[in-house]
C-alpha cells in the first residue's frame, strides 16, 4: 500500500546525535578493560631497506614489558585485494617506507612500551629508494616487491572501446593536455585505535576503528590462522574515515596476536604522526588526456593515460588504477574511449582509497580540459557540457549502464543560483567563476573478493515493547549510516526512528555488510533493510487485516498506527498490531539482503565501475585572485547534487558541504608530499609534514559559504529512490576552482593543489608572453600493454573483448 512519506525526506535529529553531543559515544580509544596492556610499534627510519637482523632481547627484559613481536611472528601476509596480498603486520625481510612497522612492544603502559622500543636493535641494509612513479619507471631495480608486472610496475593495463585514434583523427579539433594531481591524505580527526581481547569463551574479539569489519574479519582469520568463527570484529563508530580506515592495519593484527598469546586485553592508539604513515590516501597521478571535438562542440573520443604513484604496498591499488579511468565517460557521451593506466611502487606510505577513489584526478583533468575546449570554441562552458551529457538509461562506450541522471538539472540549477550567465567572463579582472561536473557510483557492483553472496544483509526483530531492533554489519563512520538504516525501516513500518535501535558494525551478531566504502551503504544496506521491513510488514498486515476489515495489501502503517486504507479512523497502534501478530505467528523477525545487478560489460576488467546507480553533481566556484601575491580567496560555492532522494535532508546537506570542504582543501592546499633528507642525515625519503600543523587543511575561517541544491528524482534501483551523497559532491570542486582562476586572471594551473606560488609563476609567464600555464611539461614513455579491445554498444559490440580488425570492418 503506497502512502506519503512520514520519515524519509524529513529533516530530523540523527539517531546517534545525542550520544555524540554529550560525549557518551565510545570510540575505539575510549574503551578500556581491566588488566589491559598497551602496544606500541617500532617503525622503519628508512624508506627502502633489507632487515638484516632484529634484536629484541634488551626490550623484552625491560620491567613492565610483556611481549615483543617482530615479523617472525607473522609468517602470513595480508592485503585487502586478493591480487595484492603483499603486506605483513610487521615487516619481515624488507621495509618499504619510512614508518613501515618492524616490531611491537606490549607493556603495562604506553610509556614503558615507548621506552622499550628504543631498546630494540634493528640492523638494516639500505637500498635505493624510489622517489616517485617516474623514478620507478626509470629504475626497475632494485625491485620494491618481487611481484607485479615488471620492475617496479605494480599494475599496468589498457582498454580501448572502439578505434580511438580514428575518432581523434576525424575530429575538427584535438586537445592534448597534461595534468598532475598531488597526493593527499584523509586526516580523520580520530586516530586509528584497536582493543583486542579474549571473550568469555576464549574467542578473539577486536573493537577497532575500521570502515570494513567484514574484510578485517577475513584478513584476521588468514593472518592469525584461526577460523573466522572464532573471531568477532566490532567496528566502533569511526571518528571520520574518508577511506583511510578501509585497509586492515598492521596494528590490528598486532593487538589481536598479542591478546591471543597473553590472554589479556591489548590496546593500541596510533599517534597523529603514525596516521600519516598508515596513509592509504589519494594517489599522486600524472595524466595525459587527448580529446577530439567537432566545431559545434560534440565530443568524438578520448584517449586518457594515467600514471599512479602507489607507494610501498598494493593496498586498494589495483582498483584505484581502474578508477583513474573507468568513470570518466559516465558524465558525457564519448563515442569512443581509451584509457591506459599504470601504478608504480615507490618508497612511500601506500596510497589507496580516499573519498572519490581514483576518480578526482582524471575528473580534474577532464573538467579543466572541457573549460579549455569551451574557450577555444567560444562556447559557454555550461552549454558545452549540456550538449554532451550522457542520457538516462543508456550505455557508455565502455559498457557502463547509466540509470537515472539528474546532471542536466544540476547544471541548470547551479548556473541559475550562482548567476553564472551574468558572471562568467564578465566579472572584473581578478574575480571569476568556474563550473565543473562529476558523478560517482552508488556502490561498487562487485565485492572485493569474488563470491556470489549478497553485498548486504539486514535482520529485523520486532519486540513486543514496540522496539524495532535492526541488525546490519554496516559501519557508522560519521556519514549517518545508522540514521539511514533507522529511517528506511521506520518509514516502511510506519514508526518513528525513536523506536528503532540499530545494532551495526559487529560481525559477531549482525549479518554481513561489506563495509563503508564506494558510497554503497545507503543503496545496498538500504535495499536489504527495505526488503526485510517489507517482509515483516506483510506478515503483520496478513494477521491484522481481518480485524481491520480489509485486505492485507490495503493495510497502512503510518506514524505509529496501523489501519485500513479505506477506513483510517479505527485502526490500532503499532504495538497492538505487533502483539496480535506475535500471538498468531510467534516471534517476529525477518531478513533481507541485496546484491547489485550484473553489469552489462563482459570483458575481463568490466567489474570495476558498474554500479546500481550513479549520483551526479554540478558545481560553480567563485574566486578572487590577488595578482600581486597569487592569493586565492573563495567567497562562495554553489553545489547541485542529484541525490535521487534525501533520506534526511540535514545530513544530506552536511555531506554535500563536507564534500565541498574536503575538495576545496585538496584544490588549494592539502598535499601529502615528501622530501629527501640531506645525505649526512641518511638521505631518506621522508614526509614533508607528518603533522596537522604542517599538513594544511581549511579552518572555519577559510571555508566559504556553500549554497546547496538537492536535485531529487527518485532512482528506481535505490531505497525510496535515495542515491549516494558521501563522495560525489567533493569531485567537481577542484576543477571548478581551476576554471574560476582562469576566468579571474587568465592563467591555467593544470595541477593540484593550486597554491599562490603557482598562480604567481603563471602570471609571470603570461606577462612575458609565454604560455600562461603551470603544470606538468612532459609525460614519460610508459610501457602500457596492448589494449583489451571492446566495441562500443553502438558499433555492434556485444560487451566482450574482440579483435581490432572487427572494428575496421564496421567503420
Amino acid at each position, binding site marked *: 500500500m503506497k502512502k506519503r512519506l512520514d520519515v524519509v525526506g524529513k529533516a530530523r535529529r540523527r539517531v546517534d546525535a545525542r550520544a555524540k553531543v554529550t560525549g557518551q559515544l565510545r570510540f575505539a580509544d575510549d574503551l*578500556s578493560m581491566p588488566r589491559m596492556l598497551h602496544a606500541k610499534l617500532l617503525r622503519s627510519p628508512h624508506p627502502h631497506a633489507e632487515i638484516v637482523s632484529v634484536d629484541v632481547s634488551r626490550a623484552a627484559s625491560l620491567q613492565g614489558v610483556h611481549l615483543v613481536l617482530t615479523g617472525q611472528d607473522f609468517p602470513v601476509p595480508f592485503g585487502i585485494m586478493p591480487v595484492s596480498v603483499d603486506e605483513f603486520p610487521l615487516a619481515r625481510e624488507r621495509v618499504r617506507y619510512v614508518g613501515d612497522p618492524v616490531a611491537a612492544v606490549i607493556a603495562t603502559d604506553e610509556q614503558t612500551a615507548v621506552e622499550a622500543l628504543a631498546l630494540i636493535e634493528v640492523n638494516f641494509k639500505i637500498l635505493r629508494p624510489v622517489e616517485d612513479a617516474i623514478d620507478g619507471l626509470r629504475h626497475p631495480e632494485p625491485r620494491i616487491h618481487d611481484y607485479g608486472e615488471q620492475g617496479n610496475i605494480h599494475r599496468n593495463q589498457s582498454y580501448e572501446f572502439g578505434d580511438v585514434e580514428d575518432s581523434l583523427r576525424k575530429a575538427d579539433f584535438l586537445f592534448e593536455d597534461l595534468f598532475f594531481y598531488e597526493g593527499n591524505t584523509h586526516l580523520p580527526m580520530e586516530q586509528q585505535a584497536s582493543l583486542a581481547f579474549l571473550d568469555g569463551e576464549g574467542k578473539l574479539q577486536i573493537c577497532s576503528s575500521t570502515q570494513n569489519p567484514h574484510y578485517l574479519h577475513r584478513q584476521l582469520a588468514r593472518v592469525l590462522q584461526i577460523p573466522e568463527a572464532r573471531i568477532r570484529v566490532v567496528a566502533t563508530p569511526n571518528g571520520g*574515515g574518508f577511506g583511510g580506515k578501509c585497509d586492515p592495519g598492521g596494528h590490528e593484527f598486532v593487538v589481536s596476536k598479542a591478546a591471543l598469546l597473553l590472554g589479556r586485553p591489548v590496546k593500541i592508539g596510533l599517534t*597523529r604522526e603514525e596516521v600519516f604513515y598508515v596513509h592509504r590516501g589519494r594517489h599522486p597521478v600524472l595524466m595525459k588526456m587527448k580529446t577530439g571535438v567537432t566545431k559545434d562542440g560534440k565530443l568524438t573520443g578520448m584517449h586518457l593515460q594515467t600514471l599512479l604513484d602507489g607507494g610501498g604496498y598494493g593496498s586498494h591499488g589495483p582498483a584505484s588504477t581502474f578508477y583513474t579511468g573507468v568513470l570518466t565517460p559516465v558524465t558525457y557521451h564519448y563515442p569512443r574511449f581509451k584509457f591506459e593506466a599504470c601504478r608504480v611502487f615507490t618508497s612511500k606510505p601506500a596510497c589507496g582509497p580516499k573519498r572519490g577513489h581514483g576518480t578526482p584526478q582524471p575528473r580534474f583533468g577532464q573538467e579543466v580540459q572541457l573549460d579549455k575546449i569551451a574557450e577555444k570554441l567560444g562556447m559557454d562552458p555550461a552549454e558545452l557540457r549540456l550538449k554532451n551529457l550522457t542520457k538516462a538509461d543508456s550505455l557508455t562506450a565502455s559498457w557502463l549502464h547509466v540509470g537515472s541522471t539528474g546532471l542536466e538539472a544540476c547544471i541548470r540549477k547551479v548556473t541559475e543560483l550562482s548567476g553564472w550567465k551574468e558572471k562568467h567572463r564578465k566579472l572584473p579582472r581578478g574575480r571569476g567563476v568556474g563550473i565543473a561536473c562529476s558523478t560517482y557510483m552508488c556502490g561498487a557492483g562487485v565485492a572485493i573478493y569474488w563470491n556470489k553472496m549478497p553485498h548486504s544483509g539486514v535482520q529485523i526483530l520486532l519486540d513486543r515493547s514496540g522496539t524495532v531492533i535492526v541488525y546490519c554489519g554496516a559501519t557508522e563512520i560519521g556519514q549517518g549510516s545508522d540514521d539511514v538504516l533507522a529511517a528506511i525501516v521506520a518509514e516502511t513500518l510506519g514508526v518513528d526512528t525513536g523506536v528503532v535501535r540499530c545494532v551495526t558494525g559487529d560481525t559477531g551478531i549482525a549479518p554481513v555488510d561489506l563495509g563503508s566504502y564506494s558510497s554503497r551503504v545507503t543503496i545496498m544496506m538500504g535495499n536489504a533493510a527495505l526488503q526485510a521491513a517489507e517482509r515483516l510488514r506483510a506478515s503483520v498486515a496478513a494477521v491484522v487485516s481481518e480485524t481491520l476489515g480489509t485486505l492485507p495489501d490495503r493495510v497502512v502503517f503510518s506514524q505509529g498506527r496501523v489501519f485500513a486504507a479505506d477506513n483510517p479512523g479505527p485502526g490500532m497502534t503499532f504495538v497492538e498490531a505487533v502483539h496480535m501478530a506475535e500471538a498468531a505467528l510467534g516471534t517476529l523477525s525477518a531478513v533481507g539482503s541485496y546484491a547489485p545487478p550484473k553489469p552489462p560489460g563482459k570483458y575481463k576488467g568490466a567489474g570495476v565501475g558498474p554500479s546500481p546507480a550513479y549520483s551526479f553533481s554540478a558545481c560553480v566556484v567563485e574566486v578572487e585572485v590577488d595578482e600581486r601575491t597569487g592569493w586565492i580567496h573563495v567567497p562562495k560555492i554553489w553545489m547541485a547534487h542529484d541525490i535521487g532522494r534525501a533520506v534526511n535532508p540535514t545530513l544530506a546537506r552536511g555531506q554535500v558541504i563536507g564534500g565541498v570542504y574536503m575538495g576545496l582543501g585538496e584544490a588549494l592546499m592539502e598535499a601529502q608530499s615528501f622530501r629527501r633528507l640531506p645525505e649526512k642525515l641518511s638521505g631518506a625519503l621522508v614526509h614533508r609534514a607528518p603533522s596537522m600543523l604542517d599538513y594544511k587543511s581549511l579552518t572555519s575561517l577559510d571555508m566559504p559559504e556553500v549554497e546547496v541544491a538537492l536535485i531529487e528524482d527518485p532512482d528506481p534501483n535505490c531505497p525510496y529512490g535515495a542515491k549516494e551523497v558521501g563522495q560525489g559532491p567533493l569531485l567537481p570542486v577542484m576543477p571548478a576552482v581551476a576554471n574560476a582562476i582562469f576566468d579571474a586572471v587568465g592563467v591555467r594551473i593544470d595541477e593540484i593543489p593550486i597554491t599562490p606560488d603557482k598562480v604567481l609563476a603563471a602570471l609571470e609567464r603570461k606577462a612575458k608572453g609565454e604560455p600562461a600555464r603551470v603544470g606538468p611539461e612532459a609525460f614519460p614513455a610508459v610501457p602500457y600493454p596492448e589494449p583489451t579491445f571492446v566495441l562500443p554498444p553502438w558499433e555492434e559490440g556485444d560487451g566482450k573483448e574482440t579483435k581490432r580488425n572487427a572494428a575496421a570492418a564496421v567503420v
Partner: protein
Amino acid sequence: MLARVRQRLTVNGEEADVSFAPYKTLLEVLREDLQLTGTKHGCELGECGACTVLLDGEPVLSCLVLGRECEGRSVQTIEGLARGPELHPLQAAFADFGGSQCGYCTPGVIMTAEALLRKNPSPTREEIKVATAGNLCRCTGYQQIVDAIEDAAAQLRAEAK
C-alpha cells in the same frame, strides 16, 4: 617508575581526588584516570582543538596542560554540560543542525563555543568562525557548526530574558 602525584581538583562542579603519573597531561588525566573519555584527542600537540576543555572558565587545549598544573582548579568537560537529562542548548543545536557528523571533534567545538557564548552572547557568524578556528573538523565543512552555535546563542539569549 616515577611516583604518582595525588591531587584534588574540581571537575564539572564536583571535587575529585585523583592520582596519576606526573608526566601526564590534563587530557590524559581526564581520559585515563577520571574515565572522562568524552574529551577527545586528535594530535596531542595542540594542533586540532579536539581536546578543548574549560579550565577556570577559559578554553584550553588539555593536551598542552600538565595535570600537575590543575591542582585546586576547576575543569569543565563535555560530560558536565547537559542540564540533567536535558541537553544544553549548544548540544541540542549541534544535534538539530547537523553540527556533529562523526562526532569526534564535537566535544571540543562545543566547549569552545560555550566559552565564546559566556563572553559574547550575541556573536556574529564571523566572530563564531574566529572563536572556533582552532577546532579542526574534517566532516562538516563548518557551516552547520556555525549555524548550530548561532541558534544556541539565540536560545540562550531567550532563556536569559
